[in-house]
């Protein structure tokens, strides 16, 4: 059982570039944390530094109370599941799973017992004598997981373990990993670039970009209050609509003006926070799911959308269209409507936007303009 504490951890490469820069993060004992970001953002490097597979150029890493900067991987009691699974090709499943115990000097009887138990837990009982080459992708994935579990490590480090599986198997394994975490209660870090995994699996998401930790928080908190345009774009699909608009003070109310009739009034709740920015250009962030085909009481405001494409996904409909901005440069807006909406490409429809969860961003610094969160203290 162990917490993980990263204190201003950096990874500097010999060519002078940073792989990871000044990451400060505390992961509590038993927590399930997701490292999310595009490829090359430093999430895997951070994971490898925690595992001891890459040296730490600056800063300190603590697992539990112990400074791990110079401790070799074998003495950290962490287990890593790699994207490639990294099963030892010349060993049977049994030997693969038992390898860690053997290296730690467990007796033959103990290795056999624990291997059998873990194999049963993961449904690998029939496969123990096979070589990795004779297993399917999903089975290899389980063996890799089993090899990590059997050692009962303090920390599980999962480096994109689901990215080589097909969609259905991935969904199954996602659930299983969460169940497994609940059952074992070990501190777990899961690296991924898949936002669905990030939103559904972890207690907390840490979003990284270009080696820096951009935002860390509970999935729904980050979703509700992204700190900047990068997080706003990255966390959901379809991504948040980000529209260049003008914020102006008109007759006692604060107005978001996208031109050509695309006008919204800032909800009273946010006026105080946004008023200082009146008269400036801002980026208006509106999630596609905050757009409705019918008014939702007083909280929504209507606007006209010229529909250019309709994607019917079965459970929902994704509308793409343009609005405001003048005919030369109309604003592209994506809306996510229920499957009951009847809309065709080429039509102009009136939709209704909920402004309360929307955000405004500074176009220069790209950070969100602070306003009270709708999620209260959460």
């Amino acid at each position, binding site marked *: 059982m162990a917490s993980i504490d990263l204190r201003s951890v950096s990874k500097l490469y010999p060519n002078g570039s940073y792989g990871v820069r000044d990451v400060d993060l505390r992961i509590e004992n038993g927590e399930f944390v997701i490292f999310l970001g595009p490829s090359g953002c430093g999430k895997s490097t951070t994971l*490898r530094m925690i*595992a*001891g*597979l890459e040296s730490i150029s600056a800063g300190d890493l603590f697992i539990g109370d112990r400074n791990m900067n110079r401790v*070799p*991987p*074998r003495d*950290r009691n*962490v*287990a*890593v599941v*790699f*994207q*490639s699974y*990294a*099963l*030892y*090709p*010349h060993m049977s499943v049994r030997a693969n799973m038992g*390898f*860690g115990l053997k*290296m*730690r000097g467990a007796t033959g009887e103990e290795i056999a017992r624990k291997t059998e138990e873990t194999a049963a837990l993961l449904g690998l009982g029939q496969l123990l004598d096979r070589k990795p080459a004779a297993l399917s992708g999903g089975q290899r994935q389980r063996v890799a997981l089993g*090899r990590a579990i059997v*050692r009962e490590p303090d920390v599980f480090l999962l480096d994109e373990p689901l990215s080589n599986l097909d969609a259905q198997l991935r969904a199954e394994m996602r659930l299983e990993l969460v169940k497994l975490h609940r059952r074992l209660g070990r501190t777990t870090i899961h690296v991924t670039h898949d936002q669905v995994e990030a939103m559904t699996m972890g207690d907390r998401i840490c979003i990284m970009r270009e080696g820096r930790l951009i935002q860390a928080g509970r999935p729904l908190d980050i979703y509700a209050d992204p700190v900047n345009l990068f997080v706003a774009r990255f966390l959901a699909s379809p991504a948040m609509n980000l529209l260049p608009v003008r914020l102006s003070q008109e007759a006692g109310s604060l107005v978001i003006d996208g031109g050509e009739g695309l006008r919204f009034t800032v909800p009273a709740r946010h006026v105080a926070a946004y008023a200082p920015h009146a008269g400036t250009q801002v980026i208006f962030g509106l999630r596609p799911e905050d757009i409705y085909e019918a008014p939702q009481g007083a909280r929504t405001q209507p606007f006209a959308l010229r529909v250019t494409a309709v994607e019917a996904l079965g459970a929902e409909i994704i509308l793409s269209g343009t609005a405001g901005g003048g005919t030369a440069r109309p604003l592209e807006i994506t809306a996510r409507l229920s499957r009951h909406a009847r809309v065709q490409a080429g039509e102009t429809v009136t939709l209704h936007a909920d402004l309360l969860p929307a955000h405004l961003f500074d176009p220069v610094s790209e950070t969100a303009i602070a306003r009270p969160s709708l999620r209260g203290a959460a």
Partner: protein
Amino acid sequence: MSADADKPPIARRVALHAGLIAMCLAIVLPLLWVLRVSFVAPEQSYSTTLLPGFSTQNYQALLSGRFGRSYLNSIVVSLGSVLIALPFAAMTGYAFARFSTGGRFARFLMLATQMLPPVALVLPSFTLLKGLALTNSLTGLVLVYAALNLPFLTWILMGFFKAIPVDLEWAALTDGATAWGAFWRIVLPVSLPGLAAAGVLGFILSWNEFLFALVLSGPSTQTIPVALAALQTSNGVQIGNVAAGVVLAILPLVVASRFIQRFLVEGLTYGSVK
């Protein structure tokens, strides 16, 4: 679509095959001729008849002399040098593949030894062995061949080790192995095809080596290439004996490559298949 539609026109195929057959013959015919000469009585070696009788006379003559001894010497020297060089080559190759050991200079130095003309190395080797009283001994020859093989085998194995996904070693390290443990228990077993391929190439290199064997060996320690050269006597080239000697000389290579072909192909394509 039928399979025929994909094939090139018949004229092109005929030309292609004719060319390939011609090239194969260019390689195979001399070997077949050597085989024929070796099994024909010496006086009929140059006969224009394709197969003027069958005789093992050449082989008997050859093996009644010192050739058998040379054969044994070659096996001892080739095997011995590979067995000594391979473990060192594996360790050096792994160090070069995974760590910055020695930097670029060490890697350059290793390649540079391969660029020296052998003649430049023969005399220093001779002086060294003389000082150690190892000239005209198989031990001396084994040591020199091991030294000659080492850079070559290191370079080949470095390629194999680089092709092994580093994840495997990382998995072993987090599983509790030391760096040596990861090398011994994971990297070496996984690179067995590469080791086998390198071993065969090293064996062939030593088996065919002539210059060092000529200078460093004596009558009782001469290897096959030297023994074959010795068949060129003042009475002319004993072509029948030479032919028989060549056939015997390539025999282990044929056998080795037949058995090791799978490993060789697997080993040489290790990185590209993955």
